[in-house]
Every structure is written in structure tokens, then in C-alpha cells.
């Protein structure tokens, strides 16, 4: 455990010692801020319209703002995750520092978990930006905090799964760009797999849609903690990290 934390804190330091962390935070803040602003604008417009017509629509902040925004934050994450994970191992391999880690009295799995945890922590920091936006809703309205908390849990699980995949891909190459591009491709693919269920109902289509990373987020976005979806994410995390350990081990045979 101590070793994991040593690696994790070192990784976090290098995220924040370079412009990467600040760049990601700023970009996420701007884009998510725009999403928030426009969906709030629409909410207010719809509210005024229904008042003018004298009809009273049930206006629910959770359903009309928080749920779609959480989903958007997840999609936005797909674009940010490759930028977080691409350097994890590729950079160490290129600069030769991997030799230091691999010849220190520390297990491969501790290195991997440390790096993955650091990536997850950075993503959590990025998500905190969205909390600033949501805080306004609590100031001026009365949204339910429980679905929001579950939504965040889902976002973290979803990111954890993609980060595990990204970590694995980063061990395969010395080139950060390749690691980033490949991870981005996989992230995108895992998102659009869900679209197949829109026009096809055969078993294979259902299996394909089930493998999509975003379909499992829907329940979380609704504020429902579905164990089936949580288990899916945990399984992907486990598999991703397991393949990373195998990949690290194969380095000892090849390089």
C-alpha cells in the first residue's frame, strides 16, 4: 500500500508540475461551463413559456439539467481520458526511467495501481469543476443531492474503466502520441457501440450494445445504483489492470 501511494503521489506531482493538469482542467471547465450555461438557459426559457401559457409543467432540475449534464460530462471524459493516460508508461519507457521502477524493490502491480490511482485522482479533480456549476443549482433551487452523488460515482467508475484501458495501451508503446490516439479510438468505439441497439434488436447487437461503456452509465445518470452496471465497470477496471500487469511482465522478456 505504501508503495502504491509513493508512485501515486509522484505521478500526481508530475501532472501538476507540467501544464497537462492545468490545461485539462481549464478546457473541461470552459466546455462544461458552456453546456451548463446553455442547458440552464433552456430550462429557464421552458419555465417562462409554461408560465406564460398558464400551464404548470412539472419542472424538475434533476431530470432536466443534472441528468443530461452528467451524461455530457461522461462523454466529454472520453476525450480527456486519453490525454491523461497516454504518458503513464510510454513516457517512462522512452526516457528509460522504467528501468528505475522495474529494478526497485516494488511489485509491478503496485506501480500500475499507483499510476492508475493518480490518473483517477486527476480525473476526480476535473470533475470537481462540474461541482462548481451544480453548486449554483443548490443556491437557487432545491435539487435532490442523492441522484447527483450516484451520478458522480458512475462517472468515476466509467472513467476508472477507461483509464484502466488507457493505462494498458500506454504500456504497449514508447510513443505517447500513439498511446493517446489508440486510447482515443478505443474510447470512441466503446461509446458508439451503443448506437447499434437503435436499429437492430438481434442478440449480437444486444451483446455489442452491452459492451458499450456509456450504456451502463444511464442508470447512474438517473440516480439509480444498479449493481449490474457497477459490476460491469469494476470488471473492465479489473481486466484492464490485469492486462497491464501481463504487458509489464512481457517487457521483461522482450525489451
Amino acid at each position, binding site marked *: 500500500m505504501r508503495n502504491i501511494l509513493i508512485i501515486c503521489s509522484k505521478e500526481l506531482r508530475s501532472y501538476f508540475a507540467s501544464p497537462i493538469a492545468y490545461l485539462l482542467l481549464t478546457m473541461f471547465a470552459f466546455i462544461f461551463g458552456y453546456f451548463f450555461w446553455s442547458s440552464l438557459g433552456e430550462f429557464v426559457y421552458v419555465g417562462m413559456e409554461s408560465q406564460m401559457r398558464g400551464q404548470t409543467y412539472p419542472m424538475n432540475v434533476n431530470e432536466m439539467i443534472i441528468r443530461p449534464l452528467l451524461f455530457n460530462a461522461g462523454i466529454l471524459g472520453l476525450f480527456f481520458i486519453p490525454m491523461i493516460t497516454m504518458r503513464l508508461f510510454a513516457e517512462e519507457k522512452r*526516457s528509460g526511467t522504467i*528501468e528505475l521502477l522495474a*529494478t526497485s*524493490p516494488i511489485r509491478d502491480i503496485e506501480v500500475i495501481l499507483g499510476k492508475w490511482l493518480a490518473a483517477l485522482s486527476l480525473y476526480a479533480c476535473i470533475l470537481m469543476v462540474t461541482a462548481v456549476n451544480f453548486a449554483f443549482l443548490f443556491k437557487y433551487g432545491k435539487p435532490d443531492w442523492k441522484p447527483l452523488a450516484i451520478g458522480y460515482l458512475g462517472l468515476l467508475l466509467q472513467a476508472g474503466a477507461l483509464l484502466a484501458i488507457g493505462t494498458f495501451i500506454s504500456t504497449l508503446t514508447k510513443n505517447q502520441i500513439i498511446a493517446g490516439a489508440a486510447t482515443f479510438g478505443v474510447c470512441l468505439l466503446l461509446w458508439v457501440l451503443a448506437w447499434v441497439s437503435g436499429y437492430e434488436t438481434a442478440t449480437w447487437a444486444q451483446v455489442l450494445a452491452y459492451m458499450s461503456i456509456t450504456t451502463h452509465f444511464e442508470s447512474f445518470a438517473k440516480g439509480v445504483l444498479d449493481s449490474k452496471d457497477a459490476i460491469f465497470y469494476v470488471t473492465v477496471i479489473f481486466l484492464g489492470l490485469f492486462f497491464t500487469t501481463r504487458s509489464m511482465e512481457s517487457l*521483461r522478456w522482450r*525489451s
Partner: protein
Amino acid sequence: MITVKDLTKRYARNTAVDHVSFEVGKGQIVGFLGPNGAGKTTTMRMLTCFLTPTSGDATVADYDVLEQPLEVKKRIGYLPETPPLYPEMETGEYLTFVGKLKGLSGAELRKRVDYVCDRCAVADVRGKLLGRLSKGYRQRVGLAQAIIHNPGVLILDEPTAGLDPKQINETRDLIKSLGGDHTIILSTHILPEVEQTCEQVIIINKGKLVATDSVQNLQNRARGAESVLVEVSGRNGSLDSAAVQQRLEQVAGVSRVVVKQSRDSYSTFEVESRKGCVRGDLARAVVESGWDLNELRPAAMSLEEIFLQLTGSEAAVQEEAAVKEAP
């Protein structure tokens, strides 16, 4: 301290290390010698558990590199060919991080960081980013990280590569001073370095062990017979080198005389003889025949010649030189 037996590393297309066996005693400084691509780095990487051997055994401090890699790693300090530095870290921060990785903590960690900074003369750059350090400093920080946990065994891959002559001397002195407490294996292709710093030499070529012996023995062994350089000049400005050669060959114990250089007034000969001192007889023969003796000195074989003789390929060394010259 280190035992290597039939260590082999095979890749898909080539064999990098082929049944190499040697032993290194406690506190020894051993030079690991060979042309580029001979398998030095691969062997070192297997000893440090960075690479898994295809077959064979290696133990460090009685721990097997395959069975108990964590125990081996605790006892080894390793400086790879390029020092493993994180450019965005400061020197002190980096050494603290490595110390933690090696299992140090608290007051002991701080003490060791202070100690290695002092020992490797990097104290003045403690607050500087590693990415901004000069090559000499980077190498010394690399050495500092290798000794931070006071390991019994130090494995240094070309520790003086890319340094200027002054820095090379400083680094050699540092390594020498570390011997005794630490068992050291250092790889190099600079031969005088081995003569100066090491007690024992392991020479490998094309993945195979060529020789393992003390520097002294190796020199004696390669010499086999003694050879002496003799420069002779004629009294009246002209010299018949064939006559001198004939005269020298008649000296008891001389097996061969080669004319190295022949001028009008003087000639140089290389005289090979069986062991034992024939130099006195040679001098007397020259002077008594009415010639002047300008120079008479033992032609000691340098390690360089031994190396070429043992690896049997001047081509390999020339290749290496070509690689070095290439930009």
C-alpha cells in the same frame, strides 16, 4: 556475492547472451568489458531483474533473480546507461522519491539523501530541476540514486560515458572509493578505465564469455613471452640493420627478432624471448659489437592489445569506433 551460471538470453532472431558464467566476490570491483552489442547491458539487466533470462541461473547475495526478485532488488543499486531521471523533478525531490521506492523513510531517508548528495557532489544542485542539469551532474545524480539505499551490490552501465576528462577522473575516484563497502560491476568499453579502477575483468564478445581474470594475470597471460624494444644506432652515422638483427638473434634465450623501423643511422627491433631477463645480455651484445644502444624497454602489452587478441576481431573495435564517430 554474485554468481552467474550458464546465463542465456535469447530473442526471436538472435542470442544476446550465450551461456555466460562468472563469479564476483564481496567488495570486488569488476570491469565488464566488450565491444558494443556484446551483451554487457543485457547481462546487467538480467542481474538487476529488469530482464528475465531465457535459461541459466543468477544469484545476488544468495538470492535467485528468478525466485526472489524483490530481495535481489533490495540489495542492488543500478545505474542504467542513461540515468533514469525525471526532468520535471528537482534533484533533492528525486533522490527522496528513489529512497522511498527503495524502502527508506523518515530520519534515515533524510540522512541518506544528505549523505549521497555530499558523496556524489550534487549538493549544490539540490534545488535544480533535473531536466536542466549538465551531463556530468546527471550522471552523478544517477550514481547518487544507485547508492541511496546503501546496497551491497552496485551495477553501473558505462558510468563515465559522455563525461569530460575531469569528470571521468572524478567519477572513477568516486567508484574506487565505493569499492570495499560495495561489490561493483561496471561495464565499459574504455580499456584504460578497467586498468585503473578494476581488480578483475570479465570480457565478453558476441554474447559469449571470452575471459575472466584479474587485470594482472590477464596481462601476464596474454604476454606469454616477454618482448623488448631495442633501438640501436651506428657510431659513424650508418647502420647495417641486418647485421644487428643477426647479432641479436644469437643472444641466448631470444626466439625472434623483428625489425620494426629501419633508418640509415638507427633501427628499432622488437625482440621476443622466453621469460626471464635477457635485457642485460642484449645491451652487452649491442655495445660489444660497436653500436650505440639508444633505447631498451619492455614492450608491455596494454589491455587494449589483450582485448583485441582475446576478442580476436579488430573489426569489431573498428566498427565501434565508426559508430562513435557517427553523429
